[in-house]
């Protein structure tokens, strides 16, 4: 046993300097495009065309941002507000409906519970993006096409959300707590509100962050619905900004950076939760 280091599991092995160099490169690779987005959004046309490319921010950020906001046919300011509305409503609704269903699946007894839970898990794999043609026709019949409602409605719940909440509630809330509240005469809704909700705050934070990010970044369906309207989401407005015969990079990238900032802020505030959500989701699925 000369090579004692292999005796340990990797997670007990201290990272060598090579590990840090590797991770540093990965981080550089990950962060550079976002950083460069910022650099171009602060530059003049000449600086963008310069060779070798400049990697130091210029001083034109506010000029470029001002141009993005004052472009008439792009509706950029409105698009940011719309994205906040769409993502906000989707997040709140997902949190409420998924935790409610998760509570029922984890703690309440009813006929067909297990079978229905299997259905939820199966729907996890349904690529509903493939139904967009028919979804468009459905929205047409309801009269919602080209409204924010059409963008919001299909994302109000998620199978992942229900499953994630069920797993969390099953582990985090003891059965005795629910049962004693029931014996004290509390109705299910009261148990949900007073016992379950306070106990699952961490899971709500995780699911909320992941849902918000996905809703904010969604492009295909909002494009189908809101392209050409004067109330696009920010992703649709960005594609509009980047279309045309003569594209001004510094302006387009200023828009791209503005549409990315809210998510960077979320990563700074809730990065820990997002990491945990992704890692927990992996173990449980």
């Amino acid at each position, binding site marked *: 046993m000369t090579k004692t280091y292999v005796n340990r599991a990797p997670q007990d092995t201290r990272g060598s300097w090579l590990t840090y160099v590797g991770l540093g490169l990965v981080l550089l690779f990950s962060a550079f495009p976002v950083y460069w987005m910022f650099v171009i959004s602060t530059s003049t046309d000449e600086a963008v065309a310069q060779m070798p490319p400049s990697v130091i921010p210029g001083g034109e950020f506010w000029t470029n941002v001002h141009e993005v906001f004052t472009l008439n046919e792009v509706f950029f300011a409105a698009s940011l507000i719309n994205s906040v509305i769409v993502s906000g409503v989707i997040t709140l609704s997902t949190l409420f*409906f998924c935790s409610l269903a998760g509570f029922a699946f984890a703690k309440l007894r009813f006929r067909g519970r297990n079978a229905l839970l299997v259905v939820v898990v199966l729907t996890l794999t349904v*690529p509903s993006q*493939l139904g967009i043609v*028919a979804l468009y026709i459905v929205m047409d019949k309801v009269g919602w096409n080209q409204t924010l409602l059409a963008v919001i409605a299909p994302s109000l719940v998620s199978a992942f959300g229900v499953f994630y909440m069920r797993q969390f509630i099953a582990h985090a809330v003891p059965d005795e707590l629910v049962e004693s509240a029931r014996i004290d005469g509390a109705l299910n809704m009261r148990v949900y509100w007073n016992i379950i909700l306070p106990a699952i705050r961490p899971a709500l934070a995780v699911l909320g962050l992941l849902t918000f990010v996905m809703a904010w970044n969604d492009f295909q369906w909002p494009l189908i619905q809101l392209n050409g309207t004067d109330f696009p989401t920010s992703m649709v407005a960005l594609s509009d900004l980047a279309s045309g015969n003569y594209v001004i990079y510094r302006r387009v990238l200023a828009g791209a950076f503005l549409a990315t900032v809210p998510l960077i802020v979320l990563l700074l505030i809730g990065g820990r939760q997002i990491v945990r959500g992704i890692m927990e989701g992996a173990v449980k699925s």
Partner: protein
Amino acid sequence: MSLTELRPASHRQVPPPKNVKTRSWLYRFDNKTVPYVFISPFFILFGIFGVFPLIFNGIVAVRNWQLDDPAANGWVGLDNFQRLLTDEDFWNALGNTFGIFILSTVPQLLIALIIANLLNRRLRGNTFWRIGILLPYLTPVVASTLVFAIFFARDNGMANWFLSLVGFGHETPLDWRAQKWSAWLAIATMVNWKWIGYNALLYLSAMQAIPKDVYEAAAVDGAGPWRQLWRITVPMIQPVVVFTVILSTIGGLQLFNEPMMFDENPQSASGGSDHQFQTIAQLIYKVGWKDLDLGYAASMSWALFLIILIVAGINTLLTRRIGGER
């Protein structure tokens, strides 16, 4: 139960006799029906907007359904599918989708494995690294693709600048969008950039669930770190590897945002001047909402659905096989 038994009898346990009847009705309702009320919003909303459109899509696919000419609508049987078989645009898009899919999935998952292995050590700033590699996952694809479009620009693009440093393309700079291989490579780079960190975290989470004594037992055979990764770690996390392969199959074959925004004129949905990088999802969008031919677009969606099922199945088998041999 024990909690309540210890507690002195509370007056709430004995409801006032006056409204015994309504209360007992209320509790029966709360016990029998309310659980269904709690789960129904999910099933109703998912049914209407998730499952029903997928089924209804099958009906649309065997109809002529023109947005601009409702009078021409009607049953056409399998005509749409027959048209699909001889549609050059469809086969071209299918080839592009697979080309980009292979160029993105394989490196993506391999690099993610290696990064996960780096993260699976005792590190300073554990959380910092994990959050850092998630930045691409959060960044909107629409926004990041615009940066990559500049990176891969023919004139003054950073990629060509790097190439010129090592002596390529001095006379005629490479036009990344013009050829299939280069456009695929550029788009695959964007896909890899977005998903490597996410997959690395999935692998890391599975790696940390491996019992430590598995490694200790194998150390007797003198396995070094590299062999440790391929001989012990990877086979142990095989279920998660299969999971990520399925995820990236479903996502990769429906690729839309990157090829859309990489186009010089994104809203045209043409995937390059000669459709060099038009994917199937893009073609569905173009046929449905530019040509306004929803019936044909629906039949393409069904074809894509079938293809995803088949490829996901094959990939699952392959991954199992490869993992099982180790």
